[in-house]
């Protein structure tokens, strides 16, 4: 051991270990073996697997592999606890959440040490980031529980929620999942990752001691099979998942058509963009926080460094100097920057990908010092000479590996940043507020940090665009993921009757020739009436089987064209001001109103409705256009109260190009109810109108044409709804899909949507479109995605 006099000369760092005695004592108290935590107690230990300390490769504990029976028991316990928990007042639930926040704080160091042992992340991070953020999440959501009745009137908890969390932030992800779920009145079955189950078990035990009623939080351990059993469990009302995009896809497919609510927080390949006027020393430190935080095992890690060409050389030189000073070592050493990689599989994956990068021509740079050989460690790594075409520029490595590329102009930086299937986060570095605030909205990402990175807070929603998933965690937007509209008591929903059997065409099925000029409904694509690709027509029959007219039988090529047209229009429409969009929506309403009688007559001819009912439907459609014209400049975002000197702007951004499959009931109003909120919020739509009575929609072309609707904002392709909806669901450049139709159709659409993780909103029970609930905030929420832009300030 070095003497004081020797150290005085060398001025080196020495060991500064955090004691692990209390954490080990907790493991020993359980004999190092754990069952599940169900209904307020640990179950008997079953078939176990080992939990490994990744910094030593030694066994820490053994936990039980959850079986289908275990999942049944956990779901049953949650369901049993649900009625009482749901019935509690908001204040009573707030007191429980408050107690959980206090519990986490009281045992903060124990949680921090167990987490570090289990995951391999540094004690600095668990102590200063993970655990304080968990406590913060429970405090924040204690507030939402208290306020739930007044802030979310007409909403209630979804029910029993299955939550599956990853190994990179075990307790933090538990907090992000459990806090909003409980605040909203749900009960929970949570499955922690197989690599890192310990803090979840500790949490469950201590939560129970803190007075949380039995069964409100249940923890089952196990691998993917246990997770699959939870996902597929018929008594689970919602699945919340954080993890890889691949598993997210499996879950999306598995829950398709089940009616389970779903939120997915998936992978990323987030850009870290440095402009020539940035504070480069600050940006270098930002990179450290972006990619060498938690060994780079962070879904929102800034893993793609994009540097403006003129400063790239300086930036890279500064970065290498900084990397040389990073320290990797024992996670419980208070003087390391990075700990261990979670598991050998993950370490192998990182090594393999870096080697692939090298093979593809990347220059791989690592500091001169070596990482420990015992345990699973990987050094901070910088790859230059990387192009967007390189594998390592596209694939999420989930390790401490940064790839660097250059750009010439702000426009090119945006193009490169968005050149990825993911869209979780982005970091923008510039001292020019005009530039930074111009770039942030252009980035396809759920979170944008300006001159900062990896900032998190319970009050600001976190979640992705594109294949990084959907749903938000944190803030008001996160609460909605755990709420559903409360059915109005005592009111039986008026479900319009749509004859289930196709009408048999009358013997003479040609309309009586009136001598008028022939009028043929075509498709409506890019603001023009277009003949269907395959020139087949579909007959439209009246209630008694009389042929009312014909519409084009659209096919996949027509949809392809419509999607292209919608994208072309979206560039302008998404940037149009709310006021401009409002003007157009009002104008549509005005022009539709002027043709009220014509539309009513058309509805009567198709559906056989009375004059009064048909007229009322047209009136309601006019009103609906007015509603969304009203909303167009009012559906504001929010400024979140995050704990920095700065603001987090929660912006409502359109999803993009959204497919709409319309219901048969209310053929005009149903169409308008779905299309209007989407275009009001800046989306462009490709709509498949009522399959059976499409003429109400095709008649709208002329209304749109005379109302200054830019070509391509609304596209209409008539035809067989479910096959067309499926084409839209499978289209990788369609970013959202609203479906109203059959259960089979909804299932197919939800399943197919997994390919590009488009957001779907599918219903298969007919709606009463005349009711007030058929418009408003729920529709608007589904029509936008929230982007949180963090803007620290101060000079």
């Amino acid at each position: 051991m070095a003497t004081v006099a020797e150290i005085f000369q060398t001025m080196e760092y020495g060991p500064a270990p955090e004691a692990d005695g209390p954490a080990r004592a907790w493991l020993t108290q359980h004999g190092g073996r754990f069952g599940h935590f169900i209904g307020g107690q640990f179950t008997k230990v079953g078939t176990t697997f080992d939990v490994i300390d990744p910094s030593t490769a030694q066994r820490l504990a053994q936990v039980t592999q959850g079986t289908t029976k275990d999942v049944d028991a956990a779901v049953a316990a949650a369901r049993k606890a649900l009625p009482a928990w749901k019935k509690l007042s908001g204040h009573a639930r707030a007191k429980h959440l408050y107690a959980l926040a206090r519990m986490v704080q009281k045992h903060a160091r124990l949680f921090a040490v167990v987490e570090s042992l289990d995951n391999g992340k540094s004690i600095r991070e668990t102590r200063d980031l993970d655990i304080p953020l968990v406590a913060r999440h429970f405090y924040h959501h204690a507030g939402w529980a208290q306020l739930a009745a007044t802030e979310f009137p007409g909403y209630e908890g979804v029910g029993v929620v299955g939550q599956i969390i990853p190994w990179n932030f075990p307790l933090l992800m538990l907090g992000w999942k459990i806090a909003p779920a409980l605040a909203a009145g749900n009960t929970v079955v949570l499955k922690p990752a197989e690599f890192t189950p310990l803090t979840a078990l500790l949490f469950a035990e201590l939560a129970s001691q803190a007075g949380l009623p039995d069964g409100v939080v249940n923890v089952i351990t196990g691998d993917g099979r246990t997770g699959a059993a939870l996902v597929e469990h018929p008594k689970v009302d919602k699945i919340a998942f954080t993890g890889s995009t691949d598993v997210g896809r499996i879950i999306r497919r598995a829950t398709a058509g089940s009616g389970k609510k779903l939120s997915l927080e998936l992978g990323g390949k987030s850009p870290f963009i440095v402009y020539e006027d940035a504070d480069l020393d600050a940006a270098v430190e930002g990179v450290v926080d972006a990619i060498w935080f938690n060994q780079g095992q962070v879904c929102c890690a800034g893993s793609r460094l994009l540097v403006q060409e003129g400063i790239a050389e300086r930036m890279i030189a500064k970065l290498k100097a900084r990397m040389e000073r990073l320290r990797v070592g024992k996670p419980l050493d208070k003087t390391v920057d990075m700990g261990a990689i979670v598991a050998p599989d993950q370490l192998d994956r990182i090594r393999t990908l870096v080697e692939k990068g090298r093979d593809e021509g990347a220059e791989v740079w690592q500091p001169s010092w070596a990482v420990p050989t015992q345990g699973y460690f990987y050094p901070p790594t910088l790859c230059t000479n990387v192009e967007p075409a390189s594998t390592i520029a596209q694939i999420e490595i989930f390790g401490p590996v940064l790839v660097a590329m250059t750009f010439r102009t702000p426009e090119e930086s945006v193009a490169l940043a968005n050149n990825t299937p993911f869209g979780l986060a982005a970091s923008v570095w510039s001292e020019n507020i005009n530039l930074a605030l111009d770039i942030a909205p252009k980035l396809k990402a759920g979170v944008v940090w300006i001159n900062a990175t990896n900032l998190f807070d319970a009050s600001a929603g976190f979640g992705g665009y594109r294949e990084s998933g959907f749903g938000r965690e944190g803030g008001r937007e996160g609460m909605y993921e755990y709420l559903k509209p409360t059915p109005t008591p005592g009111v039986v929903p008026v479900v319009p009757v749509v004859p289930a059997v196709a009408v048999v065409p009358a013997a003479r099925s040609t309309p009586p020739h009136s001598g008028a000029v022939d009028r043929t409904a075509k498709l409506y694509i890019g603001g023009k009436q277009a003949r269907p690709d395959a020139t087949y027509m579909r007959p439209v029959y009246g209630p008694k089987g009389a042929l009312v007219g014909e519409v084009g039988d659209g096919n996949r090529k027509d949809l392809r064209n419509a999607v292209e047209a919608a994208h072309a229009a979206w560039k302008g429409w998404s940037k149009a001001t709310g006021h401009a969009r409002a003007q157009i929506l009002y104008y549509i309403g005005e022009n539709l109103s002027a043709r009220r009688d014509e539309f009513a007559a058309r509805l009567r001819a198709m559906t056989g409705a009375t004059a009064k009912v048909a007229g009322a439907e047209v009136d309601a459609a006019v009103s609906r256009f007015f509603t969304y014209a009203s909303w167009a400049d009012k559906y504001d975002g929010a400024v979140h109260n995050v704990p920095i000197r700065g603001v987090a702007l929660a912006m409502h951004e359109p999803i993009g190009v959204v497919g709409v499959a319309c219901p048969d009931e209310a053929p005009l109003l149903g169409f308008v109810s779905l299309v209007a909120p989407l275009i009001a919020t800046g989306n462009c739509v490709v709509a498949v109108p009522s399959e059976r009575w499409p003429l109400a929609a095709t008649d709208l072309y002329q209304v749109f044409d005379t109302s200054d609707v830019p070509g391509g904002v609304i596209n209409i392709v008539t035809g067989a709804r479910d096959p067309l909806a499926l084409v839209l669901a499978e289209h990788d450049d369609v970013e959202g899909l609203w479906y109203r139709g059959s259960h089979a159709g909804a299932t197919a659409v939800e399943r197919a949507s997994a390919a590009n993780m488009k957001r779907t909103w599918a219903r298969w029970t007919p709606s009463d479109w005349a009711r007030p609930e058929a418009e408003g905030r729920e529709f608007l929420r589904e029509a936008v995605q929230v982007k949180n832009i963090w803007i620290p300030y101060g000079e």
Partner: protein
Amino acid sequence: MSHTLPRNAGAPLDLDLVLATRVNKSAAERRAATIPTRRTVKKEWQAAWLLRAITLMDLTTLSGDDTAGNVKRLCAKARHPLRDDLVDALGVRSLGITVGAVCVYHQLVPVAVEALGESGIPVAAVSTGFPAGLSPFAQRVAEIKESVAAGAREIDIVITRSHVLTGDWRALYEEVAAFRAACGEAHLKAILATGELATLTNVARASLVAMMAGADFIKTSTGKEGTNATLPFALVMCRMIREYQARTGFLVGFKPAGGIRTAKQSLDYLLLMKEELGDRWLQPDLFRFGASSLLTDIERQLEMFVTGRYAAAHRHPMP
């Protein structure tokens, strides 16, 4: 080691660089806040680092009521900063631990020079109308010369803050260059009075200009401003020292001063130096603390390390 270092010869005023330099305050604060949480030293390492901190100290008294008596007391402490029993218990007698310098007003320079005798401990004089620096320019230059003549080997000058606040970088450059010329062989420490410069960007720019004008050290504060040394100020100044070195090859020293009272604080600064500039800046020719009460707290912590008991200030000879 201090003899091997070429002295900063200065550089032409590079206004392009000065004006292009911007500091992001929030990011600087985040980095400064995490240096003490990313690194720590414990046990033997902490003791050794605290001993090093003693050798990096400009033991200072800058009060209106300074007399020959209290300055002599200070100098005795400078030569003998640690109780013998502690020196022996730590096994560091061979290191001959003394403070880095004694820092006083001009009037007390002769007293300090005499009291420090052959110890080799230099005397630093605050100068140029310290602390506000608003006396006539000729007098400020003359003050430097008189202090040097009286035996001061280091001169802590103050800059004219208005040059920074009005963006008159050339005036600042010329002022510091004139002070440097007046110093002759004595080393010049340029006090920026960071607490009065309004922004971190100003602190960075003033740092660059002072170095271009030939400052041997840049120093945060007089100790008399509302805000004195802070880790964000230190971070920004160190980054500019790095930038200047990259451009000119010269190594410039850094001295935080004012408000550094605890052993823990002194370790935080040493961590910052090691992390941002490297071990070379843990030597007295490139790093000093300006402090008066810091030494006593370090003595207490060292005694705690040796005995395992919490220590009392009155058991250590006062400076």
